[in-house]
């Protein structure tokens, strides 16, 4: 195959000579003459600069030609090809875009094709010119000429404006029935594209996808698999019923039932097989019953793929992946493992890579596999191909434990030092940092490793790494002594590093150093603070230090200054920077100067080691109450919550808009807190002298707070793993022996050599490495090696045991200390302060929610609250509309638990959970059971409140004893947002009684239906955790929106996302009003007005996203026209409308 492209550029001049203007291909002369001369001159050029000049010339001449009226389409086509060439080289030629569209519109087939091609290469999905293409596409889709239809379908699947999909969708749907398979296939592909960019719009044609799957042509069926793969990826449970069909198809393909045309190197339709295997993998994941169906065909696939060709390996690889993804079957796993072995041991480097990759995937399930291939893995560590090396390190990363961590981290750091690719450095250094945090055997090692990470990773390092590291130092562990040792070690190591005069360190590393020195340098009592200050001072003068880092250093200096009485360096520093041109530095210098004059304030401001003390933040801002009251008495307007303002804005006409920053209200409080904490220096001396907020201000600013920072490798993250390793009974012994082994590799003792002298030096080294790398893997904590290596390790083990007795005390000491250092760290999950406070807050604000007391009690509770803000009272009574006025139209269906259901559940021994009075009056759903166990039953009732969907969850204790600390947690769902904390704790549920908790939910990301999973746990020996899920539909979050016709008109014009659709009306709802009232009842839309055969409706998605609907009837059709600021909302509602109208 390499001869295929044997004529090279060197042949170019000859070919392009005047006597030979073109190559052998047809159609070359005309195009060649101009394009040819362009290319000829380009290749003759020597510099980028000349090329640019030439292309600019070319573009200029093209520009003139393209816009000249005399240019024929034929010439235009040539111009387009030249433009494509220029664009490919990266020169912008936007003047030609419109002509490309014109060419696609007007040209004959050949020209049209070039026009379409140019359009799809030049434009992108959101380009405004693309709208001009829509008409052409529609016309071509309707053409009788197949080539035109094909072209239109191709361009649609490449780029098409999302909002214009409805214009072509019906046409493309029609093409699914086309007699030519190529058209059907391309139509399916185009629909796939639509599914990707606007899944809501193709919801109604899912059955057509099924038809495509059953198409008699294999090509169409294969194309539909793309869609299915995508859909199953998103929601595998919805397509389990298709498993059998996919299995059947695969069986037939594997069995050679396809025409021979589909063979590739005598393998039947390999790409189709790969696709099917992937789908099966997704379907069978965690589902024993579905997996059962596919065992046979997987076995068959493995068996049939035996020809030694690249493509069969592709299938094998896919098979292996699938087998390991689905519910395991030992027989298949064995075969798959053998397959992986074949890959790993293959001399072909591509296969080796894939073998390693699959090892990476399966290693956690089956660590023994890694043991089998350990020698190969070791060899791959020194492979010349960096990609192979990196994949090997990935395997090692997955098998790291407390015993082999030093060796593995060393290997990774070695790789890091050699690597120059930024991307590789970022990911790998993140992994090293993670491993170091998890498994560090001692303080010294940990600090040294992190130093290496910081210096190698440089400034590309993920910001979480230094943040986590600092937090680890600051939060410390249970043992004070340990903490101090670690911190002191860090201080000393940084001082040593800074001692070297002319070394360059990355900014992030310097920042870490200065923070640690500032915070903890006083722990190193034997070091004169003056020395530290000198070091920092000299850093400040270095040119490579950025101003950001300088701020960190200054903060460190300030902190050190707070506990040294007088220092020459500080005086010098203040003097020096008081006149600095850098305003920031000048500011810091002045602050330092003034602080030094008031030592008491300085001590208070900068207490020692208080960086992680919790601060009391008065989130309710109660200290401002006086101020508020004063303001109100002076006639200021009372505060209104955001959604109320929004509503008023919509419903009332206002002359002027007085609301600044309306949209950012919700997060403003918390975000300001976070930014305050994240200021790089941890110090800011803003307005700390202002009145009563000063104290809080100090506390807030003098510490480095990392809570706002995402915890990538937070303690919770790796907690489970730690538990699992701790679960091994024989761990301590293995651990201590691991320590010894680890020590050996770094410093291999000579006494070892006589025992394994039968092996060559190199082999021996590798085996040593292997035993250190793979220690602690597998079920029998010892190392099981294959064949002759067994002997060596046996000796090794024995030897180490002898050693162990000698140094067991020491070893266990190390182990203990390591465990105490890092153990508690893993378990102590710091109580999330904000969460906690949020809880208290809600409990205060809404006593009625958590207690099941009567209404009167609630009122009593509420009075102090309302007294606090007397000005708000009117407003409150206004806004808490009587529950029924919410759905003021009255004829909205409100579900009430039917009496029969009540009786039925009353028959059960337990009291039926029912809503308290104040909720009972709101529209709500029936109380349904969520889940049950022997001790506990959960019931759910949805209450459609005006401002949110309220989920009332009833936990009923079925036992005869009280249940303590029952925790209810909703998991984070992509689509939904729980307004307060997602967790709730019932401190006690009395025997045979029911407790209730309420959560308000909004829809965050629009979907027609979503699942909110959750779990409830309680202290019990048996099944301590019950899982449940709540299905929420879009309609749960839709509320009517009342407005006048005028307001409607205004809002309508201000919205831009259009969705239009015509639907047939059934005879039962022939008149507009009946159709509208159906919509009103089922979808909770508010009918604004009906004029003639047109009607307008309005609703909002909680909290306040409006959606307007305009309906018109004509000849048995209902034309729906939605407008909303959010297009997904329109799509979703349209879908609901269609469903409702079909049902009725």
């Amino acid at each position, binding site marked *: 195959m390499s001869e295929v492209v044997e004529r090279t550029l060197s042949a170019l001049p000859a070919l392009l000579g005047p006597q030979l203007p073109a190559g052998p*291909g047809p159609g070359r002369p005309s195009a060649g003459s101009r394009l040819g001369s362009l290319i000829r001159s380009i290749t003759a050029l020597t510099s980028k600069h000349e090329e640019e000049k030439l292309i600019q010339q070319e573009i200029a001449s093209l520009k003139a030609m393209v816009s000249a009226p005399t240019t024929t389409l034929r010439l235009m086509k040539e111009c387009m090809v030249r433009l494509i060439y220029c664009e490919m080289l990266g020169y912008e030629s936007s003047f030609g875009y419109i002509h490309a569209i014109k060419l696609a519109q007007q040209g004959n087939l050949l020209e049209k094709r070039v026009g379409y091609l140019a359009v799809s290469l030049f434009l992108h999905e959101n380009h405004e010119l693309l709208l001009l293409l829509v008409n052409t596409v529609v016309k071509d889709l309707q053409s009788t000429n197949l080539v035109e239809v094909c072209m239109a379908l191709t361009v649609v699947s490449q780029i098409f404006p999302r909002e214009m999909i409805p214009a072509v969708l019906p046409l493309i749907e029609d093409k699914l029935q086309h007699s030519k398979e190529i058209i059907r296939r391309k139509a399916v592909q185009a629909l796939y594209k639509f599914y990707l960019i606007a899944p809501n719009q193709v919801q109604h044609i899912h059955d057509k996808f099924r038809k495509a799957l059953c198409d008699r042509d294999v090509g169409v069926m294969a194309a539909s698999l793309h869609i299915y793969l995508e859909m199953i990826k998103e929601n595998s449970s919805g397509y389990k019923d298709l498993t059998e069909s996919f299995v059947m198809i695969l069986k037939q393909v594997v069995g050679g039932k396809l025409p021979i045309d589909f063979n590739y190197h005598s393998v039947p339709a390999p790409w189709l097989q790969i696709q099917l295997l992937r789908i099966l993998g997704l379907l069978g994941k965690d589902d024993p019953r579905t997996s059962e169906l596919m065992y046979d065909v997987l076995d068959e696939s493995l068996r049939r793929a035996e020809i030694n060709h690249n493509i069969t390996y592709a299938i094998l690889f896919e098979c292996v992946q699938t087998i390991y993804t689905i519910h395991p079957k030992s027989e298949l796993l064995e075969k798959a493992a053998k397959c992986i072995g074949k890959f790993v041991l293959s001399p072909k480097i591509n296969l080796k890579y894939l073998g390693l990759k699959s090892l990476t995937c399966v290693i956690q399930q089956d660590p023994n596999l890694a043991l089998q291939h350990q020698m190969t893995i070791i060899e791959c560590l020194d492979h010349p191909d960096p990609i192979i090396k990196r994949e090997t390190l990935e395997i090692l990363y997955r098998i790291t434990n407390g015993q082999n961590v030093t060796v593995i981290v060393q290997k990774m750091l070695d790789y890091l030092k050699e690597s120059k690719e930024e991307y590789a450095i970022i990911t790998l250094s993140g992994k090293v940092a993670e491993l170091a945090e998890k498994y560090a055997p001692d303080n010294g090692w940990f600090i040294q490793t992190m130093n290496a990470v910081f210096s190698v990773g440089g400034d590309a390092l993920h910001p979480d790494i230094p943040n986590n590291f600092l937090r680890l130092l600051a939060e410390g562990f249970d043992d004070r002594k340990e903490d101090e040792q670690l911190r002191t070690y860090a201080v000393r190591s940084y001082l040593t590093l800074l001692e070297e005069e002319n070394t360059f360190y990355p900014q992030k590393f310097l920042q870490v150093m200065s923070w640690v020195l500032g915070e903890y340098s006083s722990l190193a009592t034997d070091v004169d603070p003056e020395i530290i200050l000198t070091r920092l001072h000299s850093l400040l003068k270095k040119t490579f230090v950025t101003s950001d880092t300088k701020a960190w250093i200054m903060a460190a200096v300030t902190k050190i200054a707070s506990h040294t009485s007088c220092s020459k360096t500080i005086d010098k520093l203040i003097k020096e920077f008081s006149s600095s041109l850098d305003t920031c530095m000048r500011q810091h210098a002045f602050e330092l100067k003034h602080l030094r004059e008031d030592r008491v304030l300085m001590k208070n401001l900068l207490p020692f080691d208080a960086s992680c003390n919790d601060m009391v933040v008065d989130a309710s801002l109660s200290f401002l109450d006086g101020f508020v009251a004063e303001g109100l008495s002076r006639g200021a307007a009372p505060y209104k919550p955001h959604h109320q303002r929004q509503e008023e804005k919509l419903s009332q006409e206002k002359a002027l808009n007085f609301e600044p920053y309306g949209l950012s209200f919700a997060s403003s409080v918390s975000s300001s807190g976070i930014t305050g904490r994240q200021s790089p220096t941890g110090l800011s001396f803003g307005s700390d002298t202002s009145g009563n907020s000063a104290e809080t201000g100090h506390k807030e600013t003098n510490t480095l707070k990392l809570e706002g920072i995402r915890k990538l490798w937070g303690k919770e993250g790796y907690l489970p793993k730690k538990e699992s390793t701790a679960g091994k009974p024989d761990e301590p012994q293995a651990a201590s022996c691991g320590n010894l082994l680890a020590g050996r590799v770094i410093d291999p003792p000579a006494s070892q050599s006589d025992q394994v002298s039968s092996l060559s030096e190199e082999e021996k080294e590798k085996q040593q490495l292997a035993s250190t790398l793979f220690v602690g893997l597998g079920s029998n904590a010892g190392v099981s090696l294959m064949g002759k290596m067994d002997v060596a390790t046996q000796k090794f083990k024995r030897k180490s045991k002898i050693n162990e007795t000698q140094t067991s005390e020491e070893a266990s000491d190390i182990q203990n200390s390591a465990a105490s250092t890092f153990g508690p760290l893993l378990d102590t999950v710091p109580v999330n302060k904000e969460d906690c406070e949020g809880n208290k807050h809600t409990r205060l604000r809404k006593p009625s929610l958590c207690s099941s007391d009567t209404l009167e009690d609630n009122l009593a509770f509420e009075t102090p609250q309302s007294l606090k803000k007397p000005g708000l009272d009117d407003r409150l009574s206004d806004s808490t509309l009587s529950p029924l006025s919410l759905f003021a139209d009255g004829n909205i269906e409100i579900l009430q638990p039917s009496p029969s259901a009540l009786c039925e559940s009353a028959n059960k021994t337990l009291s039926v959970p029912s809503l308290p009075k104040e909720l009972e009056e709101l529209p709500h759903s029936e109380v349904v059971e969520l889940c049950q166990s022997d001790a506990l039953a959960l019931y759910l009732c949805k209450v459609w409140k005006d401002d949110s969907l309220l989920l009332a969850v009833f936990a009923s204790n079925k036992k005869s004893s009280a249940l303590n600390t029952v925790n209810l947690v909703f998991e984070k769902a992509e689509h939904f947002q729980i307004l307060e904390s997602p967790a709730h704790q019932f401190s006690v549920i009395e025997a045979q009684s029911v407790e209730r908790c309420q959560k308000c939910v909004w829809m965050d990301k629009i979907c027609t239906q979503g699942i909110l999973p959750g779990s409830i746990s309680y202290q019990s020996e048996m099944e301590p955790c019950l899982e449940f899920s709540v299905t929420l539909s879009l309609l749960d979050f839709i509320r009517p929106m009342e407005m006048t016709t005028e307001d409607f008109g205004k809002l309508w014009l201000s919205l831009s996302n259009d969705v239009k659709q015509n639907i047939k009306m059934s005879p039962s709802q022939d008149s507009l009003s009946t159709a509208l009232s159906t919509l009103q009842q089922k979808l909770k839309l508010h009918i604004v007005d009906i004029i003639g055969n047109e009607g307008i409706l309005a609703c909002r998605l909680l909290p306040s996203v409006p959606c307007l609907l305009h309906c018109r009837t004509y000849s048995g059709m209902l034309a729906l026209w939605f407008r909303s600021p959010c297009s997904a909302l329109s799509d979703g509602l349209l879908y609901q409308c269609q469903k409702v109208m079909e049902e009725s």
Partner: protein
Amino acid sequence: MIKAILIFNNHGKPRLSKFYQRYSEDTQQQIIRETFHLVSKRDENVCNFLEGGLLIGGSDNKLIYRHYATLYFVFCVDSSESELGILDLIQVFVETLDKCFENVCELDLIFHVDKVHNILAEMVMGGMVLETNMNEIVTQIDAQNKLEKSEAGLAGAPARAVSAVKNMNLPEIPRNINIGDISIKVPNLPTFK
């Protein structure tokens, strides 16, 4: 999904670039440069897969390439594509080019950028593999060429004649000949609710 298909020569000059995911013009050029930089450094005896650089989008993406004489063919794909499968797809692509251009060389790619794109469009559509059967692709391309040529020839002919040609259909493609024998059937499909 295939994110991009790039062809460049040993000097890094782009010969064809097709992006299936939106990148800005500048990013596209950077991707081409970065990809060339990554690929050209590699020896002949290393694997054909590379982790994508930063631009093309992180660890999920891979570069799969083949080197033929003066040209590099690089496919940037995400994790939902099979590496070996794509590797063979490149082979199919090159063999198809070879058939269509009768001994393809770099020059053919330069002078017939549009044709190469057309061939590619028959194989990969909107980032998904559409057709992998070489004969099928060649048949399609030939048929279209014939039709276009005949139409172009008729440019000066009366409108009726042109429309007659236009209504001519593509030739039936031989693989459907034994439709009766294709026994791929999807049994027991449950009805769609």
